[in-house]
């Protein structure tokens, strides 16, 4: 299984979200197993959370099928372990739609299973700082100011 062929919905953004999906899927399996033992009605997949259902829909997984659920759980576990993660730092906690936009960009242009982790750093002031596995990209105002120090010094010198 390769994460390159999977696409996560925007409702699944972080590695914790993936872990939550795995746990919810396991609980759902357990409910079905207990219902089978008791001989009661099997619970419907409509009671599951929206992110889990959306993810299953993206993966085209019939949640009523036990084998499909097991494969789905394996895929989710693999994603939890192997999906690339981007760390985004902002001056303040960003609203959800901003995170969605940025995550869409990463999943469209980079990797379709990209996960994010949001951090807050007031020294950024404006913009954000992106940290991939091996690199850091600073798009903050602080970085711009630091880069413009030579220009500022030149302006001060010309006074």
């Amino acid at each position, binding site marked *: 299984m390769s994460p390159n062929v999977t696409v996560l919905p925007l409702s699944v953004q972080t590695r914790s979200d993936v872990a939550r999906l795995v746990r919810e899927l396991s609980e759902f399996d357990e409910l079905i197993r207990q219902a089978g033992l008791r001989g009661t009605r099997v619970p419907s997949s409509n009671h599951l959370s929206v992110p889990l259902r959306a993810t299953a829909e993206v993966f085209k997984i019939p949640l009523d099928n036990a084998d499909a659920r097991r494969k789905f759980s394996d895929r989710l576990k693999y994603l939890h372990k192997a999906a690339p993660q981007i760390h985004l730092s902002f001056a303040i906690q960003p609203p959800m739609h*901003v995170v969605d936009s940025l995550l869409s*960009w*990463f999943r469209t242009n980079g990797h379709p299973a990209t996960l994010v982790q949001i951090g807050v750093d007031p020294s950024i*002031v404006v*913009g954000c700082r992106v940290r991939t*596995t091996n690199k850091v990209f600073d798009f903050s*105002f602080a970085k711009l100011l630091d880069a413009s120090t030579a220009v*500022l010094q030149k302006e001060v*010198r010309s006074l």
Partner: protein
Amino acid sequence: MTTEYLLAVILIVVAAIVCAGGFIAIYWAMTQNSKLIKKQSEIIDDAKHRVQADLHKKATDKFEQTVEQNAQYLKKDIQTTSKALNAYVKTEFDGALHNELTSFKESASEIGKVSSEALANLQESIAKEQSAVLATFKKEQDAILDDLRAQHQELADKVNQLVDEEVKRRIERFETEMSRIVSAYARQAFANRIDIDVQLAYILEELEQNKQAIVGDLRNVT
């Protein structure tokens, strides 16, 4: 019997009275005698003192007179002796001095003859030595002056260099501090003032500009 006894008693009483009278008379006589002896001894002591004082005075006068006479004699003798001694010493000293002066004059004339040439040579050598010392001294003085000028020039260059470096350092520090102040002011001024929706376009633009590096790193990881 009774009369005899009475007579005997009377005789005894008379004898006692006679004895008492004799005792008193002897005691009176002894008292008078001792007074007389005491008076005589006082007179003798007084006379003795007077004689002693008289003798002492006479002896003193005689002694002084004798001492004075001896002193006169001794003085006359000393004067006579000293006159004779002076005359003898004067005669002997004059003779010896005359001899010494004569020999000294001869020696001096000989020394003058010998030393005039040596003195001329000495003056000449001193003049030569003096000129050589003066030349050496002048040379050393010139060398010291040149050295001092070089040191002064070097010191002045160093001071100028230090001043230039300090000016440059302070200007750089001022520029750095001003940049820091402006940056801090700008950060404080922009903090939380720009809507994050407005920032989103800027962030997406930056992502597009760095797309190759970001995507490359993501794909390398997977």
